[in-house]
């Protein structure tokens, strides 16, 4: 006997109409909807609307070029498959949760480095502040604990420029990567300008903005077929900006682009130690004579499941950039995402291992040797880390994401860890109510007095929001009082933030089709007009 179908309300009917239109309801649902529609003219109008939307979506599908790459795509895929011993694989797999492995694959291998998508040296942030802080310190020796001394007075006027006087002029299709502040009134930002909105066909020229007289504005001539990705000023009169030139489609012959600011002039300088094949670079200066530069040399598949990533670390001493072996990364399967330098003898690198997921998360170079920690040693296995802020050897912050599983499936959530010189402790990110959307903390920023800020991106959020976490008590020596706020409207990621005082910060961010200069003052984050 067919059970009686209860009468539907208009609200219940309209909720199902998209699936009615797409013909993907169960037979019982479809019957109930059709019964309601038969007597409801208003819902019939809704059906017409959804039918038109479906047709318009089909129109949009027709704009996709025909697929002529199935055969070549399969051949390329097949070339990356290697024969296996089925039983061994099956046994291993049977004990491996699917979503965990799939997620790890996505987190580790997706976005394979190509010419226009440098995978690893992406966005980080704030370590520039650490460089600035350390730079202040050079004259006093390198006692790191003192690095908490603010680069700019913590008691500075809340805003060096009147907030309504601040302006940013960013060229069309300009994308900013990092900024470096030399004072509350002066700084630089770097990036690239694309020739069009389609990155697969665009060409790029370098972009540099200068902040002076309360205005961010383009500075100097652009360099063709090149981009800048990182900048670190050791002082108002000295700094480096680095990136790469584009030589060919696969990046094999791309070269390091290194600009040195000295004597009031940016000069393109040669770094003999840098090989060809540089697809990205980051620089962190601790003084005019000391700095660290991480070169991304790209990645390639070595097995169906793994890529081999190549990096080179250079250390500027006595006027010469010299390679420092990355001995902690023996397997070559690690992605090195962020670098920070707090002195001539302290360099930190964070990232994650794409191999077994547990050989590397943090590495610290000190007195000529590396100390590294795996995810397990940090207490968060398979946790990608994206940003690091070492304030002192016994006060180091890192941020990233951690995987977890609950009744609704596999997820990732925001992660902050603190190192006290002996052990790593996970910061309690209180009251974050939206862990179901795979958030990741992509950038860190530190106030001169020690308050810590961390920033998600908006890719996983249903509303496209970024979220900002702040350890309010850290500034007064406490910990654990993390609070969350929503980022400014239309900002979808933040790649670099520098506090110029406890009350004011600047950052670079992604906003819609381009970039924005982010400004924090009086407790409010906003994008400069």
């Amino acid at each position: 006997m067919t059970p009686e179908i209860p009468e539907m309300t208009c609200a219940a009917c309209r909720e199902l109409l998209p699936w009615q239109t797409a013909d993907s309801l169960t037979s019982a649902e479809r019957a109930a909807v059709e019964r309601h529609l038969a007597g409801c003219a208003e819902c019939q109008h809704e059906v017409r609307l959804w039918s038109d939307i479906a047709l318009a979506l089909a129109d949009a599908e027709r704009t996709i070029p025909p697929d002529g790459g199935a055969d070549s795509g399969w051949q390329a895929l097949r070339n990356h498959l290697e024969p296996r011993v089925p039983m061994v694989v099956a046994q291993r797999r049977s004990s491996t949760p699917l979503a965990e492995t799939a997620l790890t694959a996505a987190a580790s291998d997706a976005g394979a480095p190509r010419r226009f998508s440098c995978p690893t040296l992406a966005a980080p942030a704030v370590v520039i502040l650490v460089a600035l802080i350390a730079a202040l310190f050079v004259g006093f020796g390198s006692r790191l604990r003192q690095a908490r001394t603010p680069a700019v007075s913590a008691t500075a006027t809340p805003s060096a420029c009147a907030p309504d006087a601040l302006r940013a002029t960013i060229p069309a299709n300009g994308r900013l990567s990092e900024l470096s502040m030399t004072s509350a009134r002066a700084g630089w930002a770097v990036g690239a300008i694309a020739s069009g909105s389609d990155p697969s066909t665009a060409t790029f020229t370098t972009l540099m903005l200068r902040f002076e007289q309360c205005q961010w504005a383009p500075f100097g001539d652009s360099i063709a077929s090149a981009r800048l990705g990182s900048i670190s000023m050791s002082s108002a009169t000295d700094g480096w900006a680095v990136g790469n030139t584009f030589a060919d489609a696969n990046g094999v012959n791309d070269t390091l682009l290194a600009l040195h600011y000295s004597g009031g002039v940016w000069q393109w300088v040669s770094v003999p130690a840098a090989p060809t094949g540089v697809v990205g670079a980051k620089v962190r200066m601790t003084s005019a004579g000391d700095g660290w530069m991480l070169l991304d040399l790209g990645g390639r598949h070595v097995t169906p499941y793994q890529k081999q990533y190549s990096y080179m670390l250079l250390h500027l001493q006595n006027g010469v950039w010299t390679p420092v072996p990355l001995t902690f990364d023996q397997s070559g399967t690690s992605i090195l995402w962020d670098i920070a330098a707090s002195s001539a003898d302290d360099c930190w690198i964070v990232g994650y291992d794409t191999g077994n997921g547990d050989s590397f998360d943090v590495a610290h170079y000190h007195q000529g040797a590396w100390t590294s920690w795996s995810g397990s040693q940090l207490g968060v296995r398979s946790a990608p880390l994206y940003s690091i802020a070492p304030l002192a050897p016994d006060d180091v912050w890192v941020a990233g994401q951690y995987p977890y599983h609950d009744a609704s499936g596999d997820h990732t959530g925001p992660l902050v860890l603190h190192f006290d010189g002996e052990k790593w402790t996970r910061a309690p990110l209180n009251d974050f109510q939206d862990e179901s959307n795979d958030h990741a903390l992509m950038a860190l920023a530190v106030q001169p007095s020690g308050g810590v800020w961390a920033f998600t991106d908006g890719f996983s959020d249903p509303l496209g929001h970024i979220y900002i976490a702040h350890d309010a008590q850290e500034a007064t020596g406490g910990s654990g009082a993390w609070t969350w706020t929503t980022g400014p409207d239309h900002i979808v990621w933040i790649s670099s933030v520098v506090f110029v005082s406890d009350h004011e910060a600047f950052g670079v961010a992604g906003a819609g089709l381009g970039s924005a200069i982010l400004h924090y003052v009086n407790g409010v984050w906003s994008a400069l007009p």
Partner: protein
Amino acid sequence: MQDERLLLAQIATGDEEALRQLYLAYRPRLRRYLWHQLAGDNASVEDALQEVFLAVWRTAGGYRGEARVSTWLYQITRYVALGVRRRQARQPDALPLDLDEDNDRFPYGPHDAQDWSAANNSCERRALDRVALRDALARLSPRHREALMLVFQHGFSPQEVAQILDVPAGTVKSRISYARKALMRALDLTLTEEARHDA
């Protein structure tokens, strides 16, 4: 094509031919999905497709049969696309992101009171609206368009879309509802502009 679950079981034993069959069967629709997710960057789409099926090759043995094979594949594909976008956004040559249009918090705008049927009172009007609707769709935020595409172009149920997007089913329905309202707002704006132009 053989039963998809059987194909996965064969892939788990290292059967390349089974992987090829699954690849050829799903490549067209996953390519369309990725095309919209990666803003039509063909190279990124091809890279992502390869990553998806390498993940399938690696994890087929872990398929637990709790979801349709297609839902499982789209879950992996979404994660891959998310990873690509996350990384690319941090490069100065990143894919453009039109999240500015994502206005979920204000779905009940002043135009919401207008009834769609009022604009549909003639065949000519509807033809014009189809064009305007297509333009409005192009301006819709990626996550709204993604939800609509999964429903209309890929044929997933509310529960399946929820699994793919890793959100509750109620959230899926909310997104669809928001998408409708956003389309109505954009459509109303477009029609207003056309009327002003005609005048």
